[in-house]
């Protein structure tokens, strides 16, 4: 029977890719191990090999096709003696456009993102940009305007970034300012702190924040506390950035949200954007900030596109929340990837006649309490949503603040929706259970609204 070749998943988070080039044509004999095609993921261009011997019967997806979903049939290989007449082929989509994302992670309903007017002037135009590009643009712009800004980290230069965030920066700024480090987080974080003490503005990329635990002492004891310990004489004007939180199926040591950890530390600023516009505007602010800033990104969001304003030097202030959606019945407070659950829940709740206001904290330290409290005073109910562990979560902290500042306005206890209190499991079904879900958010909202 003919063998169907499917679009492969070439990274834990890949949902689709570009079929950049076929290296075989119909009628070619191929053997296992032979490179069939070059496939471009959002991270890299990979060679894709045959695992069976046979003859290329049909190429189902043409060269250069973009957004080919994982598991879409892309070619058919005939075994010995078969031909296009005799072969039995499973149905394959005729064109790429018709293909459906199959094993992709749950896609949030895309909610129109009202960019708040404090951020951009009226009449601003927008360009759809991925979070990944937005981060790169932010770094490039700041590096152009300040000679003392440089990027260091694992694979940031020649490899173009483990998640392609620093793509092109080495070409533009050279090896002096885009520095590949050995895999020694403790050491290079300390070196960056020293460089910041010495008058430079380092951006440290951690391949993921899981690895920043190796560097925790330098981040907290050296970067965050020196300004205070020196009586204001010197501090560390720098950014620690990289993906944070769960990716997909990468297990317990690579799936953890550090928002609450860093939020605990005086002397740090902590930022966790959701949209590309906020990623860009906040990263530019973070690089300019004279304090150490922890900039928590999310691998699942890197490839997602959002409107980014076409403004020269667009910045978003650190410490200011954004109301994504106004509502009357309940306040949903979230940040980072938690926003996708909050927004999706709000959309579904609207269909049931429950009007949810959605607040994106954007900054975890300092937190814009005023925006949260004002919203809670209006809706009288609050559900917080985050991917991190439940104990000593950001939601716990907000609950306490809401109790202190808006106790009399509450019509129900605040509910914290969080990741589950377990190390992240590997199995797909267990991982799904460990993460927060939109259904849980909806259920929490129904509890606080007594529906």
């Amino acid at each position, binding site marked *: 029977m003919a063998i169907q070749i499917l679009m492969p998943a070439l990274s834990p988070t890949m949902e689709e890719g570009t079929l950049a080039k076929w290296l075989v044509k119909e009628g070619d004999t191929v053997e296992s191990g032979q490179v069939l095609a070059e496939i471009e993921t959002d991270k890299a261009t990979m060679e894709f090999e045959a695992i069976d011997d046979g003859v290329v019967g049909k190429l189902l997806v043409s060269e250069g096709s973009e957004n080919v979903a994982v598991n879409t049939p892309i070619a058919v290989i005939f075994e010995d003696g078969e031909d296009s007449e005799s072969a039995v082929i499973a149905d394959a989509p005729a064109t790429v456009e018709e293909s459906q994302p199959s094993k992709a992670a749950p896609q949030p309903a895309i909610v129109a993102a009202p960019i708040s007017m404090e951020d951009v002037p009226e009449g601003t135009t927008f360009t759809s940009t991925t979070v990944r590009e937005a981060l790169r643009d932010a770094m490039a712009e700041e590096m152009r305007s300040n000679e003392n800004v440089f990027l260091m980290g694992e694979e940031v230069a020649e490899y173009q970034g483990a998640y392609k965030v620093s793509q092109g920066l080495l070409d533009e700024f050279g090896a002096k300012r885009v520095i590949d480090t050995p895999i020694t987080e403790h050491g290079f974080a300390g070196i960056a702190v020293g460089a910041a003490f010495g008058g430079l503005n380092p951006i440290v990329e951690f391949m993921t924040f899981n690895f920043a635990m190796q560097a925790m002492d330098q981040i907290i004891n050296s970067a965050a506390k020196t300004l205070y*310990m*020196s009586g204001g004489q010197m501090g560390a004007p720098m950014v620690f950035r990289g993906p944070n939180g769960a990716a997909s199926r990468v297990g317990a040591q690579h799936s953890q949200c550090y928002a609450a950890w860093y939020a605990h530390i005086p002397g740090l600023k902590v930022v966790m954007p959701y949209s590309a516009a906020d990623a860009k505007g906040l990263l530019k602010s973070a690089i300019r900030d004279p304090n150490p800033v922890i900039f928590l990104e999310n691998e699942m969001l890197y490839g997602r596109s959002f409107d980014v304003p076409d403004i020269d030097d667009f910045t978003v202030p650190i410490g200011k929340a954004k109301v994504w959606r106004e509502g009357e019945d309940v306040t949903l407070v979230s940040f980072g990837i938690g926003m996708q659950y909050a927004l999706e829940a709000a959309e579904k709740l609207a269909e049931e006649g429950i009007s949810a206001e959605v607040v994106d904290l954007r900054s975890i330290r300092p937190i814009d309490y005023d925006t949260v409290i004002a919203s809670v005073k209006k809706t009288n109910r609050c559900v917080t949503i985050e991917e991190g562990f439940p104990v000593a979560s950001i939601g716990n902290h907000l609950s306490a603040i809401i109790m202190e500042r808006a106790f009399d306005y509450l019509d129900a206890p605040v509910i914290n929706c969080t990741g589950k209190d377990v190390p992240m499991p590997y199995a797909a079904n267990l991982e799904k259970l460990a993460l927060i879900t939109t259904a849980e958010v909806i259920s929490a909202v129904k509890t606080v609204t007594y529906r």
Partner: protein
Amino acid sequence: MAQKKTKAKANISGDELLKYYREMLLIRRFEEKAGQLYGMGQIGGFCHLYIGQEAVVVGLEAAAKEGDSRLTSYRDHAHMLACGMDPNGVMAELTGRRDGLSKGKGGSMHMFSKEKRFYGGHGIVAAQVPIGAGLALANKYKGEDTVSFTYFGDGAANQGQVYESFNMAALWKLPVIFVVENNQYAMGTSLQRAASTPDFYTRGEAFGITGASVDGMDVLAVKAAGELAVAHCRAGNGPYVLEVKTYRYRGHSMSDPAKYRTREEVQKVKDNQDPIDMIKEMLLQGDHASADDLKGIDKEIKKTVQASADFAIASPEPDINELYTDILV
């Protein structure tokens, strides 16, 4: 690569000897006073004295030039005095007062001076080592020919981040002198009990870093060794490991009963290797100063130190509003 024992005795003038004598004596008298104030309850917390090790920092400062940076661990009072920071400000920080170098918010282990390019005062063993390499990175990035004197002890020399720093400093040819102040004891653990190889100057070999060892009780030898190290770094040859063999007379900190070594061992070093006595001898023998001259110097230094103690005790505690300042810029 690693070279054993630098022992260069330069021709030296009486004035220079007197300068080192004064500088070392200032450190010793200052530390004695700090110990006394600690006993009186004027200084709290941890307080690590440098007595016995004076020749290390004085010798290396003699090899430094304007613009070089330096940083060290929590045993830091001497490094500040040696690079010219104000004894009053240091002592007032020890007493936790508003005129302290960190406004009373840092304490014994955490003081800094942008002006003197003294970057702390670090309380976590070996944390200053990558930071020192980072200062060298900044120096090189800005095209300066300055070097970073990165001091750490024999205890810190076993920490992993030291070797991460060695690797990157060598890889990127950073102008950093890794100064191992080997005073033989990591708190209460002798180096024989903690270090698989006791020759710290060879620890950079695996990274291709030149190393040398020097008698840290001899200020002139330290200076000469420091000059070689500095020349190596300034010439763009990358980092250098300088092991300085020294000895601390006092406990690890004020609360250390020092049961891990004998009184006799300490006394023997004091009698035979004291860095200040050694220079004193040279001054007298070379007829550069009389016993009375030296007594006069001691008196003068004691006066300076007493003034710093008076200042530190008279200075008020920090304003309570300082609790919430300097957290963010």
